[in-house]
């Protein structure tokens, strides 16, 4: 199965220009950016996620919601290779990425943020973003140690790109600060910037609004929309904040006890009596 999937023509286009990519995708707009089929994982006797199906179109803002312990973060961990699914398959842009390592999955185009912020705390804000660009730089370690011209050329390019990214998130003023010293909201933004630095096709945000006040959440919603439009990004997010979910998500999947409870347009799903029961109880 995987061989067949790998050979589909949709695999190409990693190095093509953005316009070309856009043209390609408009042709195959029916093909989803991310497709998850019957994804399940079992921890001992517990089926944490059971038969999940997902289809996320390119440029879509998709929400994954559900009560605590529903298995949302587990889904993210399977999508990014931290956990190996017990059964089921994951396709990114037509390529089967099931069971690959986190590094390979990131290289094939999925980047994520974490529920409990995981920045490189003892490194500067700028370096955090530059670490994300690691795989797009070509100079070797020896070239770095000997300080050959390619080191300077690529480092300069990297810094410029990183600062550009930081500007998008209004972090360029603090580029030399230690990332641990940033206020909470900015740390969340830096995590998104770092994820974008890896040039992903799909961005996974794990509770981006956790711990934010309403004003910050409002600002975050604008940022997410902006990122989606500016970088032509497909975004899947987990969130508890219903204002954010109803405000920006186009489609939703609701998980409860590892199983899909409802799926579809945001407003329809949020008014589904089953969903309301799951959240509020009988």
């Amino acid at each position, binding site marked *: 199965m995987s061989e067949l999937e790998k050979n589909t023509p949709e695999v190409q286009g990693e190095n093509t220009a953005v316009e070309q990519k856009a043209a390609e995708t408009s042709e195959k707009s029916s093909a989803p950016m991310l497709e998850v089929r019957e994804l399940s994982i079992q921890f001992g006797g517990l089926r944490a996620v059971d038969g999940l199906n997902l289809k996320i179109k390119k440029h879509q803002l998709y929400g994954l919601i559900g009560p605590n312990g529903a298995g949302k973060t587990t889904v993210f961990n399977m999508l990014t290779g931290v956990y190996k699914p017990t059964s089921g398959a994951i396709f990114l842009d037509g390529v089967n990425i099931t069971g690959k390592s986190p590094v390979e999955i990131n290289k094939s185009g999925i980047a994520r943020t974490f529920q409990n912020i995981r*920045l490189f705390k003892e490194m500067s804000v700028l370096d955090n973003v530059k*670490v994300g660009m690691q795989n797009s730089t070509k100079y070797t370690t020896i070239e*770095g140690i000997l300080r050959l011209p390619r080191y300077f050329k690529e480092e300069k390019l990297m810094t410029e790109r990183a600062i550009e990214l930081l500007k998008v998130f209004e972090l360029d003023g603090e580029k030399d600060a230690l990332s641990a010293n940033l206020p909470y909201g900015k740390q969340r933004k830096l995590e998104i910037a770092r994820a974008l630095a890896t040039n992903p096709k799909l961005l996974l945000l794990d509770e981006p609004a956790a711990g934010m006040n309403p004003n910050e959440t409002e600002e975050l919603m604008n940022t997410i929309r902006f990122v989606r439009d500016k970088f032509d990004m497909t975004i899947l997010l987990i969130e508890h904040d219903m204002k954010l979910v109803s405000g920006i998500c186009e489609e939703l999947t609701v998980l409860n006890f590892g199983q899909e409870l409802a799926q579809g347009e945001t407003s329809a799903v949020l008014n589904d009596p089953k969903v309301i029961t799951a959240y509020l109880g009988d």
Partner: protein
Amino acid sequence: MRKTTKNNLITFGGTLILCVVLGILMQAGKLNSMTTGLMVTIGIYIIASTSLNLTVGVLGELSLGHAGFMCIGAFSSATVSTLMINGGAPNWLSFAVAIIFGAIMAAILGFLIGIPVMRLRGDYLAIVTLGFGEILKSLFNNIYITSDKNGLHFGFTNPPKNIDASTKLEILRGPKGTSAPDLTNFWVVAAVLLICLIILMTFIDSKSGRACMAVRDNYIAAQSVGINVTKFRLMAFTLSAAIAGAAGALYMHSLANMLPKKFDYNLSILILVYVVLGGLGSLRGSIIATIVLYAIPELLRGINQNIVNYRMLIYAIILICLMLWKNAPVFINMREKIKAKCKKSKTADLTSGGAEA
């Protein structure tokens, strides 16, 4: 200029100036032989501690087997230099080749040991490196290499037999130690030290160094941005071992007879103390800590006989005080207050100066 570049330049410049000044004083005959000997040893320890800082500070893994890599560097380089000089090669060439050979051997073993070790983290890694350090020491405690007109003869746990007595040359003599030609002098140590500093600084301030620090700060996040964690950990560990090997080579050639048991657990811990008290991840800190902490017991030795008996006690007390000064909350608060005061007075000066202008 970038902050890192500036910091590196200060550290490198400072070390360079120190080396030149001490070298000139030495050449002018202002320093006695004891001080010169001290300078050589301190230089070697600085190379060892800065290289350990790559593992402990930048990679964030506690390695307790650093002396093991120095041991490989020492004995493999002694073999090469003895053989080359015996074969008629000039001293400087033999020594240069020996140092490089020592570093390469240490790198190879560092790489091989790193493959299993770098699968572990934290306490487990520390214990395993401790074990490997002891194994390497014991290994050289049992290796005998002797050369004669028929070539090299190796022995394990016993000296090799059937050796032509007239051309016999004992190179490694197991627990009896090894006498390498006395080639290390201050200038060689200074040169190797400066080269190693450059390598460490440029490595840390490149994408590979950043990757190592990212792995140190957050393993899972580093993987999530596509960093091949094992590769960079192995790379830093190998580089650290290689530089330790060079330090071992210098050490070997600075003493008349080197016993393998010199490279035991205590040496690893001694170097680790320099790294930790100098500040994890700070090369400058390692350099200063090595100088100060190595010099203290030696200076105490010189004061008078009563103190000599207690010098390790005094050394221990100084270590404890330094540790408290660095880490106890009371002292941290005190330091921050002093820092804030300094800053305030500085800004006050600036504003008042501005008003006058």
